[in-house]
């Protein structure tokens, strides 16, 4: 089976948690706040989902629990950022460290057991007899949900009253206040939503692919997703492409090595980061026309 299929499969496998985290962060940033703590939220989500699935035998209950834990962590970030003279970037980094530390500590007894995983969406089984193609098309159900979620979030942001208000809050604090909008509440809600999505992203790691809990599980995906938001220019639909691109780039190195082309594999392994960096440089400093929220501390 060829490299293109491997890249496509890998894009979906590796990209799913990135899709969720970047989708959530897009909404948070649209409201004018940044949450760099998502790496910690992702890990807490992964750990919680695994624990609940292990305890109850219900992986979907694990996903729900991960979303809840993510919501709580998001609310915490939102609450603390609402205090005067609190910098959201510094706080995010603190929460990232706290979240991952807590997840490692609570997750100690979860390294050995195997929890029931999420069932795959067997598109491949219906289409083909070829085992490799089948496996590549045994799709993570959270990927499908993520696609639906991205389109839904897009519609809500662009077409609904609440979406419009959220964008006003993110673009101009004075304007929002002049409209009589409760700026703090909108930001709080958007941060909680971002946390919930990051929690689900974590559940995708521990309950589907690779489908285990360990401390090295996330390897920076939560941080990466924040970069992908800029790359996606705060458009939920573009989050899909951003996540797939990064996931696909991650699959190139193993796919080529499996074929025997392993010269310079260290360079190949760095490819996803190089690609992201190159594209970010290519895009340049995002302007308001490109969808950058005006109140975002990154853009001010």
């Amino acid at each position, binding site marked *: 089976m060829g490299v293109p299929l491997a890249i496509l499969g890998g894009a979906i496998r590796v990209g799913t948690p990135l899709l969720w985290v970047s989708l959530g962060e897009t909404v948070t940033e649209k409201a004018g706040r940044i949450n760099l703590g998502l790496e910690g939220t992702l890990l807490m989500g992964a750990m919680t989902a695994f624990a609940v699935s292990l305890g109850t035998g219900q992986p979907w209950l694990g996903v729900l629990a991960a979303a809840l834990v993510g919501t709580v962590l998001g609310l915490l970030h939102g609450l603390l950022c609402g205090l005067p003279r609190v910098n959201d970037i510094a706080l995010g980094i603190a929460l990232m460290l706290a979240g991952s530390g807590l997840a490692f500590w609570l997750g100690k007894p979860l390294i050995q057991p195997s929890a029931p995983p999420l069932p795959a969406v067997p598109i491949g089984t219906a289409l083909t007899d070829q085992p490799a193609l089948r496996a590549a098309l045994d799709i993570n159900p959270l990927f499908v949900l993520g696609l639906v979620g991205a389109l839904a979030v897009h519609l809500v942001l662009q077409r609904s009253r609440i979406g419009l208000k959220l964008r006003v809050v993110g673009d101009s604090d004075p304007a929002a206040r002049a409209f009589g909008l409760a700026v703090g509440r909108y930001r709080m809600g958007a941060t909680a939503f971002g946390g919930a999505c990051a929690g689900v992203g974590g559940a995708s*790691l521990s309950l589907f692919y*690779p489908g285990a809990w360990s401390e090295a599980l996330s390897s920076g995906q939560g941080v990466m997703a924040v970069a992908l938001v800029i790359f996606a220019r705060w458009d939920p639909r573009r989050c899909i492409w951003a996540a797939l691109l990064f996931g696909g780039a*991650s699959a190139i190195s193993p796919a080529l*090595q499996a074929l*025997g082309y392993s010269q310079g594999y260290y360079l190949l392994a760095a490819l996803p980061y190089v690609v992201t960096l190159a594209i970010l440089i290519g895009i340049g400093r995002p302007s308001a026309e490109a969808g950058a929220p005006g109140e975002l501390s990154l853009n001010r």
Partner: protein
Amino acid sequence: MTDPRLALALNRRRVLQAGAALGTTALLPAWQEAMAQGTPLVVGVIYVGPRTDFGYNQAQAQAAALIKKLPGVKVVEEENVPETVAVQKTMEAMINQDKATLIFPTSFGYFDPHMIKMAEKYPKVRFAHCGGLWTEGKHPKNTSSYFGYIDECQFLSGIVAAHVSKSKKLGFIAAKPIPQVLRNINAFTLGAKSIDPAFTTRVIFTGDWSMPVKEAEATTSLIDQGVDVLTCHVDSPKVVVETAEKRGVFSCGYHASQAALAPKGYLTGAEWDWATPYTAQIKAAQSGAPMPNVLRGGLKDGYVKMSPYGTAVPAAAKTKADAVKAEMMKGTYVIFKGELKDNKGAVVIPKGSNLDQFNGELEKMNYLVEGVIGSIS
């Protein structure tokens, strides 16, 4: 005097009084003597990951659990210590706070410069490192290296793999191209080739010891290329073995037994038995003997062992592997013998040359043998 517990307590007191009256503890075993003097040997064990990782750290922790039961030994442990100055701080804390006098920093990257620095600073403390290459004159006398010839087990795994593989394509997921890893890839391949020279091993380097997503992706890629038996050299083979089981292919384990993770596809695996070098170091420390600077051994010496055969292993494979294992137990089997070519066609071991397991040349291995598909740079 009807309460038996009370009677026992009185008896013990009487014995202790008798011992005190004699003015000597010579009648008591050595460890009680040590305890009476209040000086158990404090042994520090440092892990790079969690102790329950189904892999590298678990194998070390199993040995630590065994030496805890030895008389006059107290074990202090710390897990998840990165290969940075953090490990120096951990060592200093163990030495100063816990009064540890023998330390096992178990991870490869702890050796140079971290452990060497600490050994120079604390010359009375003994440091026993796993896997490093101790060199006379270059490294302090209070440091040492222990390692096992687990490539013997990898060779046997290769033999078993060759009996169940239909595609004649084997897969190996490796962390980094360091000599120990290359030796395992090569031994696994040579084991399979000893059954049928047509066998090839595809190797994927992930770049680090613990990268679950990359390991899963590597496993998936190899299976997509038609590989039907996989093994690995990463810290925790859990992801590799579970992913292989999910895709219905076979796997051989590493470090510790992963049989529980793959009831259908687990064939066998290469496991450590670190209690052997741990015990040797402790005995030397307790008796005040000089530190054994280099400890090496294979199956014969009890440094490594095989996982029990899984249900999918045919009788012919067991017979063949057991026969080779019996020769290894006698110490007569040579894995790396001439003429051996690397996978670029160059001769790496000339004709007529047999490198026995203890040969230092093997610890500097920097090539992949013929039949391995992959590159180390």
